[in-house]
């Protein structure tokens, strides 16, 4: 082989290598969604949908039915399902955003959705939601996703945390099953009684992981014991002593399991080991998916729901931390169709019948209740609508909230896993929170 031929061959190899690299890094043309802004002219549109609903056994078959129904009703539209577990959504979607490779729609919790909006990755919903949906959606849910006056999140399923009490277990340990604790003192006393009778009983489902979600979970409890950690420009972490002491006592006495995610208590609840839970309405659907014998009849006999026991000020609180939202990304080439899909998930007949109702979510539109009154006519849903919903308080979601909330959850974990004086932990946490809240 001549020297010239050698060179040409090397050049060819080089060109192939570069081509492979460029092709690998770039987005394939076939992945593009050849969209149109007009849904009426839809033809071979693919909507990529990031969600954790298909990552969980309890919800996967249900949501797949809704997706199939949407595709059937919208010929030419294909939903590309991208399954990401709940705990991975934050980092995976963040990578997608930084890589400029966002999906069209994603399922997000409220606080994370606000962070994505602050990153400038989301499309405001005002211009893409239908007038019908805007007229019927619950405004308090819609308002959660507000950043700089614009709304970015589309409510999908209502999930304020309610206080669940296991009537059978209460009776077993000598508590009145028809009289759940009304105050934090009564709650502690009830857990003490139950633990004394049966140490295997888990007194209270309580999320003490290190993540913003844990802070949102604890938010109503914190409020019950004193000032909130972040209010306006104020940082009050060092005033959380009463709450921190209560939390330390809760874990030290063995009334709950330290370091567990909220979801990790659900199988234990399905095994009838949890006395009190503070969880979203879909706890019912989740437990039923874990135990096929847990019929509606048995479930309503076993579990009741009320507002969280009242704190020092005599009031009950909760957050809508388990509300499920969807968001449409700014880079989507089919924003209207993406929004239409998000509306379909939340408010279509199929979406409500196949997903919202069986999972136990609260409806996010008034029309859903009007259309399916019987579906929401049960003791649990009524308790959520009448007793729990009015106690919702919304944490100050913002770009800085995510960091401050994560730091605070770390401090609360320090409270339950060390013997350090609570005041010392809170003092350090205050300094950190002030830095984050600047």
């Amino acid at each position, binding site marked *: *082989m001549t*020297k010239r031929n*050698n*060179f040409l061959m*090397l050049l060819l*190899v*080089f060109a*192939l*290598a*570069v081509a492979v*690299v460029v092709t690998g*890094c770039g987005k394939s043309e076939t992945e593009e969604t050849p969209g149109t802004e007009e849904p009426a002219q839809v033809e071979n549109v693919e909507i990529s949908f990031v969600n954790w609903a298909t990552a969980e056994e309890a919800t996967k078959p249900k949501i797949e039915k809704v997706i199939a129904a949407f595709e059937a009703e919208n010929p030419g539209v294909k939903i590309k399902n991208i399954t990401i577990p709940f705990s991975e959504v*934050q*980092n995976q979607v*963040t*990578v997608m*955003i*930084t890589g400029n490779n966002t999906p069209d729609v994603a399922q997000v919790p409220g606080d994370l959705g606000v*962070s994505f909006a*602050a*990153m*400038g990755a989301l499309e405001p919903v005002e211009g893409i939601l239908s007038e019908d949906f805007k007229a019927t959606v619950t405004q308090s849910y819609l308002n959660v996703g507000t950043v700089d006056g614009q709304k970015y999140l589309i409510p999908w399923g209502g999930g304020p945390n309610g206080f669940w009490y296991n009537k059978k277990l209460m009776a077993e340990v000598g508590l009145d099953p028809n009289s759940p604790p009304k105050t934090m003192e009564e709650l502690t006393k009830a857990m003490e009684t139950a633990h004394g009778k049966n140490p295997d009983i888990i007194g209270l489902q309580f999320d003490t*992981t*290190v*993540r*913003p979600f844990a802070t949102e979970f604890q938010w109503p409890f914190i409020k019950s014991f004193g000032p909130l950690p972040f209010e306006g420009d104020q940082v009050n972490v060092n005033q959380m002593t009463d709450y921190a002491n209560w939390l330390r006592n809760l874990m030290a006495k063995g009334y709950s*399991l*330290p*370091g567990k995610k909220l979801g990790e208590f659900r199988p*234990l609840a399905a095994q009838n080991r949890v006395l009190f839970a503070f969880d979203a309405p879909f706890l019912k659907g989740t437990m039923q998916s874990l135990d096929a014998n847990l019929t509606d009849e048995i479930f309503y006999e076993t579990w009741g729901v009320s507002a969280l026991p009242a704190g020092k000020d005599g009031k009950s609180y909760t957050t809508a931390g388990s509300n499920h939202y969807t968001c449409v990304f700014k880079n989507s080439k089919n924003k209207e169709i993406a929004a239409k899909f998000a509306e379909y998930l939340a408010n279509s007949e199929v979406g409500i019948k196949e997903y919202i109702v069986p999972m136990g979510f609260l409806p996010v539109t008034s029309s859903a209740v009007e259309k399916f009154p019987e579906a929401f006519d049960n003791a649990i849903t009524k308790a959520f609508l009448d007793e729990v919903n009015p106690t919702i308080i919304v944490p100050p979601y913002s*770009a*800085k909230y*995510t*960091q401050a909330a*994560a730091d605070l959850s*770390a*401090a609360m*974990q*320090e409270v*339950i*896993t*060390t013997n350090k004086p609570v005041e010392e932990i809170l003092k350090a946490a205050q300094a950190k929170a002030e830095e984050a809240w600047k």
Partner: protein
Amino acid sequence: MPKKISHLFSGGRRRDVDDSPKTAALLIAPSIIVVALVILYPLLNSVYLSFLKYKLTEPGNIAFALFDNYKRMLHDTTFFIAFKNTVVFTSFTVVISLVLGLVMALAIDQLPKRFSGLRGVFLVPWVIPGIVVGYLFMYMFDVEVGIVNYILKNAGLIQSYLPWLMRNDLAMIAIIVAHIWNQTPFYMLMFTAGLKSIPEDVKEAAYVEGASRWQEFWHVTLPYLKGILVISSLLMVIRNFNNFPIIFTMTGGGPVYATTTSVVYIYKLAFEQFNIGYASAVGIVWVLVLLAISLLYIKATQKDF
């Protein structure tokens, strides 16, 4: 004039190959370009990002911050906790795995040939992905259903179940145990290969001279294994300094920061706090630490043990 060598034959025909430096450079160029794209570019970009005040949630507030991120590190207690955790975790994991791997290799080496298949069985933990190992040990150390508590309690060693992954003094032990289980087979494999390379007559000579089993091991076997010992240890130090999946799966770096190693801390800064500028600065410092260890490794591989 490039030198031509004639050592390749194809179909009975002799072919000349150009082995000049220029051709060598051209041949290696595609690989260099790919490496530059996938390693060098991100690295240089990270250096650039480390000089910025850059939070993903504040896209309108990105500014050049010179050494602010590096200065912040000096006052960041979590950074130093993570550094200490990394050193503790790596030291214990490497040393214990090394000793166990050596013992296992020596033991298996003594077994009759029909038991040689055992090596394959012992290698299983090494081929299991980190994330799976993490979940496996997370459940083994679970306070409620973990088999570790069950065994210890039935053996009378503990009175009540311990929250292994939620106690500062126990969580680090749990992740070290998981890593030792995962990595010991690697050492066993390396030492087994080393033991096979020791000439039998050298060992026999030692015994003829009246050496005991221990003296033979100390003066004959171990010197032969010295090279493998140094190189594999350095390799595992680098690997463990960067270890992420098992730690993150088992504890997420907790409780609080008890098992937060440097890579876990970088991850948290970038993906939980969205602080790309500071995460990059910590990452760059970490690259420098690893670079220093890598240089030791390269030097070790060039040494004649």
